[in-house]
C-alpha cells in the first residue's frame, strides 16, 4: 500500500538525481551545445573552490539559524500574548497569520520597494520623522534584511503551531504548579516551555526544509549582493544554472547541496525523530 507513493517519490528523486549526477561530470553549458565532454571532477573542483561557496555556506547557515531563532522565540512570545484574555482575539489571530499566505516574490517586492527603500520607503520616512539617519537596509545589512523578510513570512507559522500547543496544555497542570507555588516565570520555564518542546521541534523541522531553499527573496531584493554577502547556496546554484546556463557546474553544485542538506537532515531528523516518538 505504501508502494505507489514511495515508488513515485523514488522516481521523482532518482531519475533527475541520476541525470544531475551524470551532468555534474560533464562540461556542459546550455549555450554551447555540441561541446559536451567528460570533465571528471572539474565542475566540483570549481564549485568547491569558488570563494563564493564558503560565503554561501556560511550565509545559508546564518539565514536558517537566525530565522529559526527569531521565529521560535517570537512565536513563543506571540503565542503567549495571544493566549492572554483579550477582546477580538480572533481578529488579532487573523492579522498575525496573514503573512504566511503571501507569495515570497510579493513579500520581497513589498519589503524592498515600499518599506526598506532608504529614500522612498516607509522605514526611511519614519527614521527621518524621528530625526534619524535612514538605514540603507539592503546595502549595509543585506543578510539581516533578508532574514527580517523571511522571518516575517515564517513567524505566523511558528506562532500558530506554538499557540495551538499552548492551548493544549492541561489546565490542571498549570493549576497544580500554582498550588505548588510557581510564579509566572517559573511556570513558563518549568511547565510551559517543556510542554512546547514538541511543537518547537515541528517548527524547526518544517521551517528548515523550506529555509534551506530560500531563493526568491534574495533574487528580488539583493541579487545575492553586495559582494556575496547575501548569497546562499541555492542562489549560488541558481547563478550557475540560470545566469551562466552552466548545467555541469550547477549540477555539481546541486549534488553538493544535496549532500549538505542530507547532513543537516540527518542531524535534524535524529533530533526530531526522538522528539516525535513520545
Amino acid at each position: 500500500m505504501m508502494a505507489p507513493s514511495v515508488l513515485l517519490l523514488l522516481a521523482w528523486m532518482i531519475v533527475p538525481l541520476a541525470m544531475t549526477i551524470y551532468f555534474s561530470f560533464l562540461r556542459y553549458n546550455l549555450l554551447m551545445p555540441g561541446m559536451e565532454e567528460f570533465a571528471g571532477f572539474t565542475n566540483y573542483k570549481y564549485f568547491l573552490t569558488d570563494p563564493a561557496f564558503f560565503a554561501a555556506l556560511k550565509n545559508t547557515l546564518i539565514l536558517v539559524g537566525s530565522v529559526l531563532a527569531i521565529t521560535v522565540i517570537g512565536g513563543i512570545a506571540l503565542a503567549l500574548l495571544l493566549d492572554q484574555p483579550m477582546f477580538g482575539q480572533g481578529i488579532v489571530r487573523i492579522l498575525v497569520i496573514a503573512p504566511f499566505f503571501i507569495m515570497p516574490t510579493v513579500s520581497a517586492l513589498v519589503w524592498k520597494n515600499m518599506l526598506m527603500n532608504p529614500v522612498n520607503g516607509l522605514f526611511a520616512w519614519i527614521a527621518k520623522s524621528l530625526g534619524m539617519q535612514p538605514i540603507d537596509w539592503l546595502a549595509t545589512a543585506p543578510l539581516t534584511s533578508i532574514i527580517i523578510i523571511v522571518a516575517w513570512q515564517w513567524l505566523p507559522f511558528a506562532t500558530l503551531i506554538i499557540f495551538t500547543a499552548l492551548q493544549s496544555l492541561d489546565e490542571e497542570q498549570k493549576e497544580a504548579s500554582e498550588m505548588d507555588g510557581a510564579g509566572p516565570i517559573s511556570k513558563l520555564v518549568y511547565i510551559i516551555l517543556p510542554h512546547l518542546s514538541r511543537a518547537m521541534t515541528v517548527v524547526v523541522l518544517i521551517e528548515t526544509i523550506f529555509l534551506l531553499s530560500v531563493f526568491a527573496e534574495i533574487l528580488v531584493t539583493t541579487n545575492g549582493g553586495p559582494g556575496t554577502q547575501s548569497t546562499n547556496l541555492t542562489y549560488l546554484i541558481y547563478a550557475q544554472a540560470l545566469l551562466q546556463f552552466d548545467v555541469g557546474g550547477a549540477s555539481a553544485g546541486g549534488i553538493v547541496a544535496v549532500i549538505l542538506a542530507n547532513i543537516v537532515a540527518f542531524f535534524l531528523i535524529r533530533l526530531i525523530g526522538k522528539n516525535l516518538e513520545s
Partner: protein
Amino acid sequence: ETLTIATVNNGDMIRMQKLTDDFKKSNPDIDLEWVTLEENVLRQKVTTDIATKGGQYDVLTIGTYEVPIWAKQGWLVPLDKLGDDYDVDDLLPAIRSGLTQDDKLYAAPFYGESSMIMYRKDLMEKAGLTMPDKPTWSFIADAAKKMTDKDNEVYGICLRGKAGWGENMAFLTAMSNSMGARWFDENWKPQFDQPEWKDTLETYVNMMKESGPPGASSNGFNENLALFQTGKCGMWIDATVAASFVTNPADSKVADKVGFALAPHKDGVEKNGNWLWAWNLAIPAGSKKVDAAEKFISWATSKHYSELVAEKDGWANVPPGTRTSLYENPKYQEAAPFAKMTLDSINSADPKNPTVKPVPYTGVQFVAIPEFQGIGTAVGQQFSAALAGQVSVDQALQNAQSLTTREMTKGGYIK
C-alpha cells in the same frame, strides 16, 4: 494557427499587445498568444527553452546580447522574408550591425536605446554651471558635488548600483569604455588589474559617496527613476527611454526642468560612456510557424507600426531607436524633445569596436560570450560591494580579476 510570443513587460511591448487588432485585420488566420514576463525571468525561460529545444515559443523578444551568440549557434532563423516594403536599410546602422551575422539579419529591432545624461536644468543653474555638449567625468563629479543638498534630499547624481550584468555592470562597462578600459585583452586576459579600471571604479565610487543617494547599491533603473521623478536627483545617467518618463507631467514632478546631454567621457578618451541596447524580435530555429512569425515581426517593427502608434497614442510614444526615418520625421522631433540626443547617443556607440584598445569580443556594455551573464553578475556584486563600502575599490578589483580569470579558465578561453 497560434503564435506564442514571449515579451518583456515594458511599456512599448504592452502597447503593442493592445494594437494587435491591426495585425489581425490583415492576418485573420493568425492568433497571438502573449507571454509577458519580467526581463530576467523572460531571459531565463527563453534561454532554457531554446537551448533545450523545448519549442515553446514562436517569436522571442531578446536583447542585443543574445542575438550574436544565438545566431552563431544556429538557434535563430534568419529573417529574409520581411516583405518588400520593410526597408531594412532604414534601420539604424549601429543597431543593425549588432543583429547581423554573415550579412544576414537574425532579429528585427523593436526598440533601441542608448544611455545619456538627464539633468535638472534648474539645479544646474543654481549651481552656477552649464552643461557642455560633451561633458567630462570630472565636470560631472564637480557638478554633482555642487548640486547636492543632502538636507533637502537632493543628490547630485544617481547611478545604477544594484548588482547584475544588466544592472550596474551595464553602466560601469559603458563608463569604463570612456575611461579607456576594457574587459579583456586580445588573449582573453581579464583587465581589472589595469589602471583604467581602477580609475573607473574610483571615480564612480567617490562620486556616489560624495553626491549619491543613500542605498545606491541596490538601485536599478526603477529606483533611480523614482528618485529623479520625485526631484531627488540632480543628474541621472541611464537609458534613453527614461526621457519620455521624466518629461511626462503625469508621473514626474520635474517634467519641465529636465535637460539632456551625451554621456560623459574622460578627458583625452574618444569614447563616450553610453551603451547600446535594443529589444528585438526573433524566431527560434525549429519553430513550425516561421512564415506566420515572420509576418508578425515584419508588422511589429515596420514603419507602418510606428504610424499606427502615432495615430493612436501620439508620436512621443512611438518605439524609439530603430529607424532613421523616425528621427527625420519633423512631427516626431517636435513631440520628442529628446529625439536628437537619443539618436546621437545611439550613433556614438559601436558594438564592434566598443573600446579604445582592441578587444576580441563585440558588445558595448557587455561581452557577447555565453559566460558573460554569470561573470558580469559576479563582478557586479563585487562592485556593488565596493559602492556599499563593504570592500575597498582595490579589493573589489582584485576579486573581480581573480574570479573572472577563474571563469575564463574554466570556460577554456585562457589556455
